[in-house]
């Protein structure tokens, strides 16, 4: 994956020089370990600002919403699926975009690495399949597979589904993955146990809405939490309000979520917020055979119906 960078530079430079696009949206090197900052490059001289490594977990489709320019965007598998969703939902037009596809081998989990490293992390260096974490006079080497973000570890669509140019040959897709083990574990719980589990999961939530805002799907002009006439949700750290927020946030992503993991990566408190969206992803797959963002020609499940949809739960 590290070798992708020169190709990204060449493509970006060419597109900008030939004025095929007005800007390239990608990442630049962050100021702290394991962080890159989404950025925009507008002139060919600056393409070397762009970086690519395993810290590009932010979903760049989030930066395309309602833009009018011609844009080249660097897209991993999940990003590309969200770009598809964006196109379907008229948040951007296909012909405005030049998708620089990146066959992805997964992003690393900064929360996980921090918790596995007792000292302060000063530097994280990445070599092929190896992550070297350095603190003041100490070092630890992890296999990349051990420290992948959880959504990357169970990803089955690593290659972009739409692209105008790929920066490398497609990578092999993972097969025989059980994507919903954690969801089933909760489904099997008793009512009381479920409530305890979610109360515990959400007890750290500070309602900063980083999960919502990092998500490319959350672009409503007024989010339900900001509605004040009527006000559906209290603003305090009341556990029911917090639980309701997470439930509705997930529900708004139903049939649209690609499990890109941006929400979880963004959470400053390390809450497993994917546990909500994954349940809906599982349901959409089981009930409607749907995987989000795989095709430009199919309508998402909540925007269509079949006369014979399952309705056992209806009296």
């Amino acid at each position, binding site marked *: 994956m590290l070798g992708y960078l020169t190709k990204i530079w060449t493509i970006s430079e060419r597109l900008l020089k030939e004025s095929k696009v007005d800007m390239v949206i990608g990442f630049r090197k*962050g*100021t*702290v370990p394991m*962080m*890159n*900052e*989404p*950025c*925009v490059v507008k002139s060919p001289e600056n393409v070397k600002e762009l970086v690519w490594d395993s810290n590009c977990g*932010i979903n760049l489709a*989030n*930066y395309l919403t309602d833009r009018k320019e011609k844009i080249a965007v660097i897209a991993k598998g999940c990003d590309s699926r969200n770009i598809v969703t964006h196109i379907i939902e008229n948040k951007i037009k296909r012909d405005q975009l030049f998708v620089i596809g990146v066959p992805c081998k997964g992003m690393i989990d900064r*929360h996980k690495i*921090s*918790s596995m490293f007792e000292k*302060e992390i*000063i530097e994280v260096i990445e070599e092929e399949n190896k992550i070297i974490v350095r603190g003041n006079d100490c070092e630890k080497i992890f296999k990349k597979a051990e420290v992948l973000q959880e959504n990357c570890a169970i990803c089955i669509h690593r290659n972009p589904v739409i692209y105008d140019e790929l920066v490398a040959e497609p990578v092999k897709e993972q097969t025989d993955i059980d994507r919903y083990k954690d969801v089933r574990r909760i489904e099997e719980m008793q009512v009381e146990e479920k409530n305890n589990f979610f109360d515990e999961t959400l007890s*750290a939530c*500070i*309602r*900063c*809405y*980083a999960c*919502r*805002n*990092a998500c490319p799907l959350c672009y409503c002009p*007024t989010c339900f939490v*900001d509605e*004040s006439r009527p006000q559906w949700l*209290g*603003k*305090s*750290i*009341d556990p029911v309000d917090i639980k309701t927020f997470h439930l509705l946030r997930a529900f708004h992503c139903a049939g649209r979520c690609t499990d890109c993991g941006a929400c979880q*990566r*963004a*959470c*400053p*408190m*390390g809450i497993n917020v994917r546990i909500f969206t994954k349940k809906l992803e599982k349901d959409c797959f089981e009930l409607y055979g749907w995987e989000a963002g795989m095709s430009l020609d199919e309508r998402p499940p909540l925007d269509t119906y079949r006369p014979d949809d399952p309705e056992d739960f209806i009296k």
Partner: protein
Amino acid sequence: MKIIRIDKKNWAGGLEKLKGSYRLFGPVKDNEFHNFKRLDKDELPDFNYFNTRLSPKSIIYPQSEIMLEYELDENKENHHVMKESKKDYSQRVVIGIRPCDASAFLLVKRNFDTPEYKDPYWIRSYEATTFVGLACNNPQATCFCTSAGCGPFYEDGLDVLLVDAGDHFLAKIISSKGENLLEAAGWDTETDADEQIETMKQEAEARITSFVTTNKLKDKKIIDLFDAPFWEEVAFACINCGTCTYVCPTCWCFDIQDEAYGLCGIRMRNWDSCMFPLFTLHGSGHNPRSTNMQRVRQRFMHKLKYYVDKYNDGIQCVGCGRCIRLCPVNIDIRKICNMMNSYEVQVTSD
């Protein structure tokens, strides 16, 4: 100033003794990070930390705080009266607060305790609290306190400065509140360690590798900075979540909400964030800060320019580095501060 030596074997005993007359708050590791929390009986603060994930501001200024309450049930006393809710303002002590976080309360005090307006909730909480700081022997790479008006051994805002010296703590008494506290705990071995603390302080300060320059902010014109061309670029990555404002020890904005529950109800205040569109939304539907860029600019202009101009005492930031570490998209206040500080308006000929 008096310095008391506290042997670590006497530490737990002293704290237990304090719990008789004070409510104790200290850093405790919960899941993967530390946060301040009320210490129960036999519970000790865990000092094996750089800093807490969230700032301790919530001890004085909770994220959600009830101000008034009412009751409409006619069988209850004082029904139909909006009254102040009963709260515990008994003595308490925050043990192990980092000097930067304690000095942040002094910045926040400028907002809650002014000659014209006094916020009763904040002031009562603040005054009931004794701050026992823990000096930072090992600051983090994201700490820039020394150039943000405080430092790893900074004393303003504290009542006692605790220095970890291996098998014992050195407790430097800074105020009478602090002196009373050490007395109550039964720690009274006076020692002469001024020099030792001074050396440790210099060593710690030398370990700080990250800085901001703020010297020119004051002289810039507000309008020049406001119209500076870099805001679009700075704001590009920002997703407008409230993480930076909620983890910040110096952010003080709140929103007042009424909630009714059947026959009773409360008026409370909750932290609010200038990053949210709702923060400035008018009743008319107009929003003076409707774009992402405007909100990002507001946050940095407030901390690094408006505050500087208004109080003439440096920036509204203590350099704890939390917003840098926790920003989901790596927006770095150090970079922006330096950008603002070095910004010169381009004079064009036309």
